[in-house]
């Protein structure tokens, strides 16, 4: 691993090869999320970017990472990215396949699972997540989103949560329109008052950098940036007055090995061949 070089790398855009060495913003984000996972952890994985990141970690530095999908597949080892959380390759490669009541009641609820990996349509300064509705009222939403799925209990009961989400003023809002999954509620002490067992969000990884909750205020604070991204860039895409850490990390871009592994996983996106 080489040290990060500061240089004239362009800012990663929302898509397309625009980062250092033709790295896309999604690839930067996926690699950063993968690095947040350590070998031997247990990880409750959502589909999309979280699944890509968890599988990248397993393919690189964390071969013993235990991937758990809410379809009931525990210890899944897919050789390519599944399109859904219930693709056949997950069941075929799992250590155990259990029913949906069991995955929630026996595995998630008692706090057996270390990391919960979530996405978000909206996230607020306290890491609360909305995936239900956009708009002023629940009954007549401007946009009907898919809803909760497994997220509320993952956010409540995993020992820690990592959120992976593309950053914009639409997604990073001062207050979410609907609390689907609780982060730090309305601030310090909220999770304890609500009786939520897990510690809540540990990192929010975006296409600009990384935010972490301030230990005192629980407010999401910018702690890391990708090469070429500036603090004003992030502020411009945040819907509240963003707190910035005094010591900002510059995040390493993906290594050649990480990029190769990720692109290999994605080579046949969602393919279900009988390999």
């Amino acid at each position, binding site marked *: 691993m080489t040290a990060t070089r500061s240089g004239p790398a362009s800012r990663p855009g929302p898509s397309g090869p625009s980062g250092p060495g033709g790295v896309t913003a999604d690839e930067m984000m996926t690699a950063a999320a993968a690095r947040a996972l350590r070998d031997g952890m247990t990880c409750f994985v959502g589909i999309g970017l979280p699944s890509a990141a968890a599988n990248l970690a397993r393919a690189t530095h964390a071969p013993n990472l235990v991937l758990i999908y809410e379809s009931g597949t525990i210890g899944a080892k897919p050789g390519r990215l599944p399109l859904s959380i219930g693709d056949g390759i997950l069941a075929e490669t799992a250590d155990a*396949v259990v029913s949906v*009541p069991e995955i929630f009641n026996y595995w998630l*609820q008692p706090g057996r699972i270390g990391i919960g990996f979530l996405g978000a349509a909206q996230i607020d300064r306290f890491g609360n997540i909305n995936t239900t509705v956009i708009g002023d009222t629940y009954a007549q939403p401007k946009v009907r989103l*898919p809803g*909760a799925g497994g997220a509320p209990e993952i956010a409540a009961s995993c020992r820690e949560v990592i959120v992976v989400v593309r950053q914009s003023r639409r997604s990073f809002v001062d207050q979410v329109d609907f609390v689907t999954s*609780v982060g730090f509620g309305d601030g310090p002490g909220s999770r304890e008052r609500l009786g*939520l067992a897990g510690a809540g969000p540990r990192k929010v990884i975006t296409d600009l950098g990384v935010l972490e909750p301030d230990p005192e205020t629980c407010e999401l604070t910018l702690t890391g940036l990708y090469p070429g991204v500036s603090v004003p860039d992030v502020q411009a895409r945040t819907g509240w007055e963003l707190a910035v850490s005094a010591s900002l990390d510059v995040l390493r871009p993906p290594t050649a090995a990480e990029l190769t592994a990720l692109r290999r996983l994605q080579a046949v996106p969602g393919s279900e061949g009988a390999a």
Partner: protein
Amino acid sequence: MVARWQGHDVSRCVHLGTWQEDMAEIVSLADAIERTVHDGDSVAMEGFTHLIPFAAGREVIRQRRRGLTLIRMTPDVIYDQLIGAGCASKLIFGWGGNPGVGSLHRFRDAVENAWPGPLGLEEHSHAGMANRYVAGASGMPFAIMRGYTGTGLDGLTGLSGQPVIQPITCPFTGERLTAVAALNPDVAVIHAQRADRSGSVQLWGITGVQKEAVLSARRSVVTVEEVVDELDPRPGAIVLPSWVVDYVAAVPGGSHPSYALGYSVRDNDSYQAWDAISRDREEFQRWLADEVFGREGGPLAGTGAAEGGHA
């Protein structure tokens, strides 16, 4: 089916069928749906990504059922089809999207624009839905879980206007927990790999919440890839004995574009193609006419959906 035992209405408790333990009947899919799914019924078609009973869903559309309360943890493409076709007036659910692809456009059109009609919602998390089925299958009025605290879901009312999520205090520890009301659908419909000739059903791979759905429901239909002489053991398989199943229909490929482990693979291209088909009302109606009604019927007579793409 008879839902009384010694004069007691047991239909809300457990699926007993009749006291004489009727065995399942093996019938055609059309007959199975006609005998079990009636206008206004609550219907749970389950299958977690795997073993989704798509063919049965299309048969419900073909039979032009109306006013259904659809129940499903993950109302993905199968319920997008039923909602767009005007079969449903209510939905009890946990997550309504096209997995790995994006929105369910027919579901969104119903909620956002009341097309082809309004859709009442009762919304939960997956854990809440799973526990509600467990309560229904167990003959209990509710299930207890840790969940919902601090979320917006906690304050929502159910379709009855009553809350379906309530706080409850543990009588042993005093801990505050969450109670969720039992689900007891009129009908459960699932797809499985196999049945034997007596109508006992065997499924394996990702088995989701199908056992609980069947055991919580008053009536049940199972479509299967094949009917065999003997159900030899498979790793991780569950068996639903014939006497808890009402109708079995052999429908090879009946879960497509979902899949049946050991028989087919998930047709991810179809899920991706659904995005374009469902995004546009007219495109969707062409799909209905071509793929569901075939040459036999016009699209959606009398639903308003036949009037085309006006909000």
